[in-house]
C-alpha cells in the first residue's frame, strides 16, 4: 500500500540566500553558512564565531546618514523586516515544528515562510520581535501552522531593531512528517470568506460554479445575513482584507497573487451592488475618491480594479502608483504582477523590488519590459537580493531611467563589470549601494568619474577592491560625499584615510574590519579635515592606540556613533576622556577590548546616561 508515515528531524542542508551576515564571504566565522548542520554551540550563550551572526542590531543603522529611507507604504500587509535567510533542507516534508537555536540575544525571528523550492510561499508563523528575554541560549519553537503542503525551503525573516546587541543563531531544526495530517472538516460556524475558501469557490473561473456555490451557501440561510452586513466601500474592504490575513494563511498559488485577478475579469458582475453604476461612488468628487484610494495597500488596490467599472477607472490612475514598496509583499510578486502593474505605473518614481522574485518567480525579460515601459520617471530603485538582475537589466536601467538618483543593488551577484559600466550614464546618481557585488576597481573609477552628484556610497564586503585607491578616486571626483561604507573591505591604510580627509562633507564613515597598519597620522588628518564626522566605525582596528583615541577626543567632538570593538591596546582612561569630550555621543561599542572590563562599562553607563555603551563582557569560555 502506501509508505508508513514517519516524522523526520532535519537540520539545514544549505543556505540558499541571505540578506546580510556579519562575517566575510568565504570565511567560517559569523557567517550564514554556520547555520548548516546540527547545533554546535547550544546551550552555551555568547558571541561565538561558529554561529550565524546578523550584521546589525537596534535602530542605529536606520538613524545615520547612510541609512536609506524606506519607501512609504501606508498599510503594509505585514510589518517590514530587516533581514532574511533562506535555508534548504534535504527532504520535503509537511512541517510540524520549527526550532530555532538562538545563542545570543534571542528574539529576532519574526516570520517563518515555507515553500517547495520557492514555488509559492506559505506563511507558517508571524510574530512580534521579542525583547526583555533573559541572556540565555534558548530553543525558540514558534507555534507554526501545519499546512497541507510539502516544504523543503524555509525563509526566516528577522527584525532585530529592538535588540541591544548582535543576534546570533546556531542552527534551525525542521520537524516534519512525510505524510499529510488529516484535513479539518468544514465548520459551519466559520465566516463566509473561509467557507468560500474551503469550498474552493475563489479559484473557480466558471460563472456557473460560482452561482452553484453561492446558492449552496444561501440555502444555509447565512448568505442573506452576510450580504446585509457587507458594504463594498474601501474602508470595509480593508477590514475584510485584514480579516483575510488573520483567517486565511494558506497562500495557495492563485488565491492571493495580485496578478491572478487579471484573469478573473468575468467575475466582475458577481460583486456589483444594485442601484447606481458604481455603488454611490459616482456621487463623490474625483479628488475625494482618489484620496480614499490612496489609503489602500497595493494588493487591495489591484483587487478594486475588478469590482466595478468606476473603481476600475480610479484604481488604475497612475498617480496612485508613483511610489511602490513591493519589498513588503515580496511573496506576492511574480512575473504576472509586474505585467499587470506596468499598465498603471507610467508615473512611477520610487520602486523597491528588494527580496522579490527569488527562485525564478520573476525573470529578467519581464523586469526589463517593466522598466522599459515604466522607468522613465524613476528616481529611486532598490533591487537588493534580486537575483534576476543581470547586465542587460542594468543596460536597460541606465538607458531608460535617466533621472535615477538612488540605486541599491546589494547582493546582486549576476552583474559584472559590463553591467556596472552602463551606470556611467546615470549622471544624477546620488546614492549607490553596491554591497557584496562583483564590481572591480576600474569600473568603479569610471562610475565615480561620471557620477559627480554622488553623496552616499556603500561598498561593504567588496573585498576585491583596493580601498586605498578607491579613497583616492573619491577624493578626486566625489568632493560632496556624505557617507561611505567600506565594511569588511580590507586594505585601507593611513594613505586612504589621508585621501578621505580631502572630502570635508563626510559625515558617516564605516571602516569596520577594513583598516590595517598604523593609522595615527591618517586618522588625525581625517578628523581635522572632516569637521562634520558623526559616525565612525573602526571595528577590529587592531593597531588602534590611545593616541588615536586622543585624536578623536581633541578634534571629533561632534561624534555620535563610534565603534572600536576588538582592540587590545586601548586603555579605559583614554575611553573615559573620549566620553567626556564627545558630548553628542549616543553609541559606543568597546566589545572584545581586552582592557575594558565590565566594571568600567557599568561605571560609564551611570556617569554618561545618554550614551549606549556596548561591551565589557566577561571573557567568554571559548574564543572560537
Amino acid at each position, binding site marked *: 500500500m502506501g509508505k508508513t508515515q514517519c516524522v523526520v528531524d532535519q*537540520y539545514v*542542508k*544549505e543556505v540558499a540566500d541571505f540578506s546580510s551576515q556579519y*562575517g*566575510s*564571504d*568565504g*570565511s*567560517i*566565522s*559569523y557567517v550564514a*553558512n554556520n547555520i*548548516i*548542520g*546540527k547545533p554546535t554551540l547550544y546551550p552555551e550563550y555568547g*558571541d561565538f*564565531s*561558529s554561529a550565524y551572526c546578523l550584521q546589525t542590531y537596534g535602530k542605529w543603522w536606520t538613524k545615520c546618514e547612510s541609512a536609506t529611507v524606506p519607501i512609504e507604504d501606508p498599510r503594509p500587509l505585514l510589518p517590514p523586516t530587516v533581514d532574511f535567510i533562506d535555508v534548504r533542507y*534535504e527532504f520535503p516534508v509537511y512541517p510540524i515544528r520549527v526550532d530555532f537555536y538562538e545563542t545570543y540575544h534571542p528574539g529576532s525571528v519574526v516570520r517563518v515562510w515555507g515553500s517547495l523550492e520557492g514555488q509559492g510561499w506559505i506563511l507558517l508563523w508571524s510574530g512580534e520581535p521579542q525583547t526583555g528575554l533573559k541572556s540565555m541560549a534558548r530553543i525558540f519553537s514558534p507555534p507554526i501552522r501545519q499546512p497541507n503542503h510539502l516544504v523543503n525551503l524555509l525563509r526566516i525573516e528577522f527584525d532585530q531593531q529592538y535588540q541591544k546587541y548582535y543576534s546570533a543563531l546556531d542552527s534551525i531544526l525542521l520537524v516534519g512528517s512525510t505524510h499529510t495530517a488529516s484535513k479539518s472538516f468544514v465548520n459551519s460556524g466559520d465566516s463566509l470568506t473561509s467557507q468560500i475558501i474551503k469550498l474552493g469557490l475563489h479559484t473557480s473561473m466558471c460563472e456557473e460554479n460560482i452561482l452553484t456555490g453561492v446558492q449552496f451557501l444561501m440555502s444555509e440561510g447565512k448568505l442573506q445575513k452576510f450580504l446585509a452586513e457587507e458594504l463594498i466601500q474601501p474602508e470595509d474592504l480593508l477590514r475584510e482584507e485584514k480579516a483575510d490575513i488573520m483567517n486565511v494563511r494558506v497562500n495557495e498559488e492563485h488565491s492571493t497573487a495580485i496578478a491572478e485577478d487579471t484573469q478573473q475579469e468575468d467575475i466582475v458582475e458577481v460583486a456589483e451592488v444594485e442601484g447606481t453604476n458604481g455603488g454611490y461612488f459616482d456621487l463623490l468628487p474625483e479628488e475625494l475618491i482618489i484620496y480614499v484610494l490612496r489609503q489602500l495597500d497595493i494588493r487591495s488596490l489591484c483587487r478594486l480594479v475588478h469590482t466595478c467599472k468606476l473603481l476600475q477607472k480610479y484604481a488604475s490612475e497612475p498617480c496612485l502608483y508613483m511610489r511602490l514598496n513591493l519589498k513588503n509583499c515580496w511573496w506576492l510578486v511574480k512575473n504576472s504582477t509586474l505585467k499587470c502593474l506596468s499598465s498603471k505605473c507610467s508615473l512611477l518614481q520610487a520602486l523597491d523590488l528588494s527580496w522579490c522574485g527569488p527562485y525564478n518567480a520573476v525573470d529578467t525579460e519581464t523586469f526589463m519590459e517593466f522598466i522599459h515601459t515604466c522607468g522613465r520617471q524613476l528616481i529611486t530603485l532598490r533591487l537588493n537580493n534580486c537575483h534576476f538582475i543581470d547586465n542587460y537589466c542594468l543596460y536597460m536601467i541606465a538607458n531608460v531611467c535617466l533621472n535615477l538618483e538612488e540605486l541599491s543593488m546589494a547582493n546582486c551577484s549576476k552583474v559584472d563589470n559590463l553591467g556596472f559600466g552602463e551606470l556611467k550614464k546615470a549622471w544624477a546618481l546620488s546614492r549607490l549601494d553596491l554591497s557584496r557585488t562583483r564590481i572591480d576597481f576600474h569600473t568603479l573609477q569610471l562610475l565615480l568619474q561620471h557620477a559627480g552628484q554622488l553623496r552616499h556610497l556603500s561598498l561593504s564586503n567588496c*573585498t*576585491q577592491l583596493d580601498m586605498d585607491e578607491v579613497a583616492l578616486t573619491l577624493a578626486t571626483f566625489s568632493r560632496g560625499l556624505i557617507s561611505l561604507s567600506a565594511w569588511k573591505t*580590507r*586594505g585601507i591604510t593611513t594613505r586612504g584615510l589621508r585621501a578621505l580627509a580631502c572630502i570635508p562633507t563626510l559625515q558617516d564613515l564605516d571602516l569596520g574590519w577594513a583598516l*590595517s*597598519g*598604523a593609522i595615527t597620522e591618517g586618522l588625525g588628518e581625517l578628523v581635522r579635515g572632516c569637521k562634520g564626522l558623526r559616525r565612525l566605525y573602526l571595528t*577590529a582596528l*587592531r*593597531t588602534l592606540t590611545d593616541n588615536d583615541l586622543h585624536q578623536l577626543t581633541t578634534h571629533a567632538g561632534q561624534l555620535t556613533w563610534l565603534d572600536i*570593538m*576588538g*582592540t*587590545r*591596546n586601548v586603555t579605559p582612561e583614554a575611553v573615559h576622556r573620549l566620553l567626556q569630550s564627545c558630548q553628542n555621543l549616543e553609541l559606543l561599542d568597546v*566589545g*572584545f577590548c*581586552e582592557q575594558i572590563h565590565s566594571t568600567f562599562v557599568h561605571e560609564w553607563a551611570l556617569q554618561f546616561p545618554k550614551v549606549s555603551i556596548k561591551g565589557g563582557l566577561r571573557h567568554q569560555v*571559548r*574564543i*572560537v
Partner: protein
Amino acid sequence: MQSVLVYGRLFSRAVANGIYSVSTGGQAAAQQQSAPSSPAAAAASPSGAEAEGFTTAAVNSKKLRFLTAVSGFPKNRTLEKVKPGKFGDDAYFVVKHPHGDVIGVADGVGGWRAWGIDPGEFSHSLMRVSERVVRSGQFTPSEPAAIIARAYYELLENKTHILGSSTACVVVLQGDAGQLYSANIGDSGFLVVRNGSVVHRSQEQQHYFNTPFQLSLPPPGTNAQVLSDRPESADTLEFLVKEGDMLMVATDGVFDNLPDSMIIKEMVKVQGSTDLLLLQQAANSIAQQARKLAFDEDYMSPFARSARENGINAIGGKPDDITVVLATITV
C-alpha cells in the same frame, strides 16, 4: 600585521575564485560521524570509529581509516584543569570525514607568556578553527598545508584579537587511495611505523636551536622583531600507507624526551590490533614515559644530545607539554 593582511586579501580572492569548494553532499553524514575532541586527558574515539565503520563498509571495503587514541600532560598539571582539545599550551584535533581522516597538533610558543599573552590561546584557536574547517568539508585531502593556511587566516576574522604563535602539524589520510598527506611547520611532527621500524617521519623545522618555525600573529607594530613564518613554508610529504601501519603525531614534548626506540617499542605492542583499549593504553604509556623522563634531571634525552651538538652543556629531560595522538591504519 601588514604582510599577514596582504596574504589575507590574496586568500579571500582565492576563495572568491572558488579554489576552496564546499562539499554539501555527505555533510550531514559528516556531522554524525566526526568524533568530538576528547573530553579528558586519556581519551579514545570509539563512537566515531564505529559509526564510520558501518558507512564506509558499505561504500568501499578497502577504504583505509584511522583508529585514534589521544593522551598527554600539560607541563603544569596543578595549574589548570584538563580541558578538551588541549594540554597546557599544546592543542590537537581529530576529525573523521568522508573525504579523509585528519589529525592535527599545535604547540604554543611559551615565550609569549613574558609579554602577558597566553600562548595556549593561539594554538587552541588554530586547532579549533582547523577542526571546523575540516568538519565543514572545505578542504582538499591532498593539501593539508591549505588547512593550516585557511585556519590561520580565519583567526583574523575573529572578533577577539588573537595573539601568539605556535607550530602546527596536520596529517590527512585519504582512505580510498591509501595516501597519507602531511604538512608540518616547526618541531612538532609525526612518524609512521611498519613492522617494527620507522618508515616515514616528519622533518623538524628550526631557525636555530630551540627556535622552531612558527605561525604567529604578533602584536601590531612588532613585525620586525617577531619570528613569523608563513603557512606556505610548511614542509609537505605524501606517501602510501598500508593496513596495519601505525602513526603517531606528537609535539616536541615527546620527541625531545623519548628516543625513537622507546616509542617504537610501545607502538609495536599494539601493531595490527584494532582494540581501542589497547591503543589507548599504548598512547597513555608513551605519554607517561615522556613525562617521567622529562623531569629526570640526569637522563641524556634527545634534547640534551642536540643541545650538546649546538654547544650547550645540558643534561636531563625537557619539561614541556606532552601531546600524543596514536593512530592505527585499518579498514
